């Protein structure tokens, strides 16, 4: 026979009433006189109680309770782990992408390829415009490249020109941390301008040449210099 909680409550109340009714004759209980031994024992007990600072008794949960709850917590953690692992993996995946993006953003790698690879002679650039007071202070030329620096009192413009000849590509790593990158077009060609600490670095694939450099001139001045460059 099965029983519900409600039935158990009803039956328990009736059982309680029945047990209570069996204790109805209270007059006989009062007749008992507690023994002298009992009274002396109580005196000793009183002294013990007075000496000790008796506090309200605390209820202990019991080791079974802690084990049961511990097991429940472990199972809950396991269950939650099972549920959340795909999300964790996904989150880790996104994190990995984020890290890669951060690395790529902070240390951007530019790889250049040129279809203009040739055995033609290297011809250095000629500047059509330079800001007032700019003078050449460095010029180094090889068979395949030139490196030159112009400067006035406060400003400078550095340029490095290299021809694609025996290489099929070029990798150029730029630290782009805390930088702003702008792309401007000269004709159909794009120039990357990376600004960091007030200094511009530029990268330009111009025909069969790879041109790069640095300057603390304004972007407008840099573009104006590059626009007026000729290779003849």
């Amino acid at each position, binding site marked *: *026979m099965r029983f519900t909680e409600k039935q158990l409550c009803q*039956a328990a109340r009736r*059982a309680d009433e029945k047990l209570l009714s069996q*204790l109805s004759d209270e007059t006989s209980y009062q007749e008992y006189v507690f023994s002298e031994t*009992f009274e002396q024992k*109580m005196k000793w007990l009183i002294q013990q109680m007075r000496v000790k600072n008796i506090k309200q008794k605390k209820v202990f949960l019991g080791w079974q*309770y802690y084990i049961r709850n511990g097991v429940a917590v472990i199972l809950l953690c396991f269950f939650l782990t099972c549920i959340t692992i795909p999300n964790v993996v996904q989150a880790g995946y996104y994190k990995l992408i984020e890290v890669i993006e951060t690395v790529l953003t902070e240390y951007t790698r530019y790889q250049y390829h040129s279809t203009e690879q040739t055995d033609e002679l290297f011809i250095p650039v000629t500047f059509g415009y330079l800001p007032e007071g700019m003078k050449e202070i460095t010029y180094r030329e090889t068979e395949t490249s030139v490196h030159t620096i112009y400067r006035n009192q406060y400003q400078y413009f550095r340029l490095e020109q290299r021809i694609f000849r025996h290489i099929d590509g070029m990798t150029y790593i730029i630290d782009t941390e805390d930088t702003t990158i702008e792309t401007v077009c000269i004709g159909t060609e794009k120039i990357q301008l990376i600004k960091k600490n007030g200094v511009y670095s530029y990268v330009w694939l111009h025909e069969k040449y790879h041109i790069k450099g640095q300057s603390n001139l304004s972007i407008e001045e840099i573009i104006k210099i590059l626009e007026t460059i000729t290779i003849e």
Partner: protein
Amino acid sequence: MNILSVCLALIEDKAEQDKFEALYYQYRGLMYYCAQKLLHDEHLAEDAVSIAFLQVAQNMDKVDEVMSASTKRLMVTIVERKAMTLYQRQQREYNRTVDMDEVICEATSLGTEENALMDAILQLPLIYQQVILLKYSRGYSSKEIAAILDYTVAQVDQLLSRGRRRLKKLLEAV
């Protein structure tokens, strides 16, 4: 009234002290009777009463009005629990094994199917009957029962679980 003094020291509130004093005078005889019925020993019964009143003093917040039926049952329950503990201790001293599960309060024959559940509760060993009545008849929580009967909460939950299983077995035997 020495025991009364000890217990009163535990009760700071004046109203509760009066209440405890009233409880003591009202129920000491009944409690002794209940303890004596289980122990069949005057001295042990007196010990059970004194320990029971200490337990009452530590649980005054769970006691209703002095003259209520629930209070009367509570006092009996507490003294029966203490009597059981003393009985068990005494049996150990005599190197006799005793299963307190088998201490049955009242032998009652199972009646009609309608009363079967109530009769099954009355047939339960006292150790289970007490927690089931405190829980289902008087609505105490496991924590309160643990405080009243001097168990741990886990023990109370275990006794409730076993008590329900015993009830099912008793009912299946009908």
